[in-house]
């Protein structure tokens, strides 16, 4: 078919289509109805996927916030709050949901260990509210000041001498911390005002 014949064929086709068209109904495109259900489906699908992702966003904060606040309400744990010293609880125990004013106290830590050094664990046994402390050894800063959290921080310090915990910043309700000494297996639950410190004298 030459070009002229093709043009005539196309004209005839168009003419036939025009004669059959109903001008009273809105035009529709071949192969679908854009703006109706077919074209909304990809966008609906995208909305549903994004909606599902957003719903997942609430699960993550719930997991984070509920993860580590397991309070030890056993008898031995509660006795600790009155005695303030215990060999029965392990490092990282959380006793209170909120800070309570705990009087500052110095301690003498007696032990029979012949080791030169010992481990200590420092943590917040009440609310994680932004309390900062610093560890000093014989009056000299041993660490940078750090935020105490429920998860204990571990340090290796000399087994003889003065270990001081200095209160740097009170996040609210007082600086409450606990310290456990590997050398005698005991945990001390203490508090300290900002700028002051508690001294633990380690002796054999």
């Amino acid at each position: 078919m030459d070009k002229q014949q093709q043009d005539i064929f196309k004209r005839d086709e168009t003419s036939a289509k025009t004669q059959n068209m109903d001008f009273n109904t809105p035009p529709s495109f071949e192969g679908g109805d854009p703006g109706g259900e077919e074209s909304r489906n990809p966008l609906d699908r995208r909305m549903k996927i994004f909606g599902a992702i957003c719903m997942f966003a609430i699960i993550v904060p719930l997991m984070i916030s509920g993860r580590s606040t397991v309070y030890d309400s056993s008898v031995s744990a509660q006795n600790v709050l009155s005695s303030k010293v215990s060999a029965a609880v392990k490092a990282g125990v959380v006793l209170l949901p909120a800070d309570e004013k705990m009087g500052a106290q110095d301690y003498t830590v007696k032990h029979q260990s012949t080791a030169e050094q010992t481990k200590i664990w420092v943590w917040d046994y009440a609310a994680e509210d932004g309390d900062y402390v610093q560890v000093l050894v014989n009056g000299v800063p041993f660490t940078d000041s750090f935020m105490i959290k429920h998860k204990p921080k571990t340090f290796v310090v000399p087994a003889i001498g003065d270990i001081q915990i200095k209160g740097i910043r009170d996040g609210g309700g007082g600086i409450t911390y606990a310290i456990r000494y590997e050398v005698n297996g005991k945990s001390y639950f203490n508090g300290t005002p900002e700028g002051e410190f508690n001294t633990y004298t380690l002796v054999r």
Partner: protein
Amino acid sequence: MKPFFANAFAFIYFAALILPMLLVIFIIHLLFLSDVSTIRTSGFSGPSGDFIIVGLCGFIIGLSLLIPPLRIMYRVLPWLFPLVQIGFINIVILEVALIILNYGYEVNNEVRHTTFYILMIVQIVICRLAMSVYYKVKPLRSEGRRTASGQTTTGHF
């Protein structure tokens, strides 16, 4: 009767939850720089409970997108879906940035502070770049509307 209740439900949900949530998203954007400045000047980590607010916003948005009668609002207001998408993703990025900065400021050490401040900036830049690339590949579209002549238009953002 059913369409009436669906529309009413969508309207109430929009007025009572979506609008305040959009305001919260806007405020989080405004407060971000102030939070960073507070942490940097004080030298101490700040409270990091805002992820709960982000989670709540996500929950409200998620419900509105997953429940079919509520999706009406995105058809009536074609600009809403792109706004909600960009706004929510932005606050997630900003909240992650604050978490990074707060973690860096948990120890009082200048080198650590500087390192995590730079990390925070890098995280924001990378996430925003990733977002830009994603929306370049899959552009945001509003819901199509019929014009007076019966043709359909779709807006591209």
